[in-house]
């Protein structure tokens, strides 16, 4: 029976090639638009550490100028970074299960066997909990385990740096020089590039190739080498800074802090801890802005920092509106076409078809249009994504679109099937309800 209905469907669709083409192409375009925007939106806004969304929190306090907000476009948000003083104090708390403070600076690697020229690397100076907190995968070895207060000469390499300097071999235990100091390799990462780079959106949520973290050193080296961060840093406040000590005590914001707080009680306690510190510091003249201590989860963090741009959300809505237009178009065409065939449907009913037969016959026709439109839409959507990727070949932002992941394909197919079938349900159903007699009268 299905084969019969398929034959009838193809017959019917062939009879009006223009309308059929219009329906299929319109659906295909609508679905392609949705696929492209959905994939881009999903890739750009997805929380790459979603399994820890209720556990990891960005720690921020508002130490900015009382006269103006840090970001005039989002005046209620505190700055995303902390001063050295505040970071060190907050990190001294034992309330969080784990915590990390970190910053970014450039470094020079030298002394690997056979290395001709020094290699400039983007370095993340971080305390040791970084790796456990963010579930960073290691190929060889692991992170350092000593005290955060000590400038341990231990370094972790990214997979790419390890490949470039040691040919990808297990380099744990090998010696290398970073910014002129001898370090021992304690770990090499697997390929790890969460996008968006949620833990450091300030420097860039989608870092260009020259901006991704390539090596990791203990945070204490900042003070040990009197090094300045080369990532984002904003300062305000009175007085010039004449030396490094004054720099550490200044109102310059250059440190990101994250805390692992799995329980609500823990979060309450930590917030109380932050508030107490804030109150105490306020008495000395700092923190003159209203109280705005925050613990922000990753999803909200991405939103606050504009990682999910309003643009991608607008695009998503436009794409869906377009799909709606295409579907309405299709419903109209199907309805008109089916109703026009009313006399023939009357004949079939006279010959013994019941309402279900008529409905099935027309739903099959709808399904053929839907499958054709869906497949075409997938193809056009894939081409569209390939085009987007090609245009942004050098931009890391779109690198993750390299793979048309199976989840995306499944989504697209489901979208195609569901939307078109939904569109065709009404026409197919209403045509089955036509009374047979009315359309048989030939006079």
């Amino acid at each position, binding site marked *: 029976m299905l084969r019969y209905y398929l034959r009838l469907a193809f017959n019917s669709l062939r009879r009006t090639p*223009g*309308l059929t083409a*219009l329906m299929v192409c*319109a659906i295909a*375009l609508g679905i392609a*638009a949705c696929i492209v*925007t959905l994939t881009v939106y999903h890739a750009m806004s997805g929380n790459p550490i979603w399994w820890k969304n209720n556990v990891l929190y960005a720690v921020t306090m508002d130490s900015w*100028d009382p*006269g*103006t907000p840090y*970001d*005039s*476009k989002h005046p209620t948000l505190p700055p995303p970074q902390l001063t050295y003083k505040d970071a060190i104090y907050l990190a001294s708390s034992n309330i969080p299960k784990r915590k990390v403070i970190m910053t970014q600076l*450039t470094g*020079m690697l030298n002394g690997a066997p056979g290395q001709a*020229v*020094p290699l*400039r690397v983007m370095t993340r100076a971080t305390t040791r909990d970084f790796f456990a907190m963010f579930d960073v995968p290691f190929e060889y070895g692991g992170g350092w385990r000593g005290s955060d207060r000590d400038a341990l000469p231990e370094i972790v390499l990214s997979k790419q740096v390890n490949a470039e300097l040691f040919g990808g071999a297990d380099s744990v235990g090998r010696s290398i020089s970073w*910014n*002129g100091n001898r370090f021992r390799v304690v770990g090499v990462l697997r390929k790890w590039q969460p996008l968006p780079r949620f833990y450091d959106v300030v420097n860039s949520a989608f870092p260009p190739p*020259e901006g991704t973290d390539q090596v990791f050193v203990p945070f204490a080296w900042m003070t040990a080498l*009197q090094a*300045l961060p*080369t990532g984002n840093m*904003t*300062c*305000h*406040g*009175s*007085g*010039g*800074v*004449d*030396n490094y000590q*004054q*720099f550490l005590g200044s109102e310059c914001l250059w440190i990101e802090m994250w805390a692992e707080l799995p329980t609500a009680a823990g979060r309450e306690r930590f917030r109380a801890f932050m508030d107490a510190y804030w109150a105490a510091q306020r008495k000395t003249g700092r923190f003159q802005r209203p109280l705005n201590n925050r613990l922000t989860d990753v999803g909200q963090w991405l939103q606050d920092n504009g990682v999910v*741009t*309003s*643009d991608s*959300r*607008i*695009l998503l809505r*436009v*794409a869906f*509106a*377009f799909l*709606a*237009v*295409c579907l*309405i*178009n299709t419903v*109209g*065409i199907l*309805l*008109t076409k089916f109703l*026009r065939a009313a006399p023939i449907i009357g004949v079939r009913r006279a010959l013994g078809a019941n309402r279900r037969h008529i409905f099935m016959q027309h739903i099959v026709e709808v399904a053929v249009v839907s499958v054709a439109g869906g497949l075409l839409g997938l193809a056009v959507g894939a081409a569209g994504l390939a085009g*987007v990727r090609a*245009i942004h070949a050098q*931009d890391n932002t779109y690198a993750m679109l390299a793979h048309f992941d199976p989840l995306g394909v499944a989504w697209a197919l489901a979208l195609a099937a569901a939307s078109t079938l939904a569109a065709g349900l009404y026409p197919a159903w209403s045509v089955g309800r036509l009374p047979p007699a009315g359309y048989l009268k*030939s006079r």
Partner: protein
Amino acid sequence: MNLNLRPILSALARNRTGAVLIALEIAIALAVMVNATWIVAQRVQQIEEPSGFDARDMFAIGVSALSSHSDLGAAQREDLAYLRSLPGVVAASATSSVPLSPYGQGTSLSPLPGSNAPMTWTRMMEADEATLETLGVRIIAGRNFGAADIRPLTKGFFQAYPEVIITQSLADKLFPGGNALGKPVYSGDNTPMTVVGITSNFIPSVADTPAYDALLVPQAPGDFGIYFCLVRTRPGMTATLLQTAERHLATSNLDRVIFSAQTLPYYRARLDASSRDMAIFLAVVTALILSVTCLGIFGLTTFNVSTRTKQIGTLRAVGARKRDIVAHYLVENAIVLVTGGAVGCVLALGVGQWLSDQYQLPRLDLHFLVIGVVGLAVIGQLAAWHPARRAAAVPPSVATRTI
């Protein structure tokens, strides 16, 4: 012409669902197209925002110190000397930021001293005497830095400078009455920095601050272990000179390393990228929605005509002229367009309001709405024109034919 609306309306009422669907389609299409075009106009405006200088024949090379012991001051002097010696290089300068790129710094300034003074956040650039010439930016008032004014690189931090240069845009913000020249500005303390020069507006580097606010300080860059060599070349020679320079500088001084070498147009393109993408996508979708809607009108009207040939023939047989048939279909179409358009206007305004509330976009310009409605009406009627002509061509004899 005898426009008898009642038969037309009753014919429409009998084919209600089809007409309602088209009207709905038109409403949504109108709402989307008007707002999408509005956003495109905004983005195009952003893309066309002039950089304030001719970025076409410029490139920038980023240099990073090898270790904390590197003498970046000497490296700078060496690099600039080499670059200026290259034939085809018009000017070269050492700066702490690259215009149009995200590499840059900012600071806050006030016309009043003290830490409680109202501050304006602005981009900042450590520059030398050749910077303005390299950029090709004009001095409107006052003077440029002299070679002797440039403070050499030391390990100091955030010192106050006796003399600074600001852009016109920043001058207007700090001194609304005019006459910024010669006035002091402060960076949150009591040390005055005198404005010795005011330049025309240009984009120093990219951030959330207003585009053209910039402060130039006479300082050899390199506090953070990084500096940039900004170079202007003669037209057409940028690509080759960039390659030559990069190759030489990579090995000429092993105390420092080249970490980036790009033309300024590259940064401009990156800057415009997201606006451009958005504009292109919206423009494409707008065109597609318009096409789909019009093809839908065309297709359905053609179809309706082909199923009603008997009625048309009968009408003609009883005396309707070709003109009357055409009018019938165009009026029928017009009713649907007007209904859809009216709903679409309400929808478009609603969407526009929502967009401006949610996403801080400027309010929809009503001109766009008017143009959208008129445009859609005209194109919608054009879509029904051909089928209406086909209807008029149905011969009256069809009325008497049996099936």
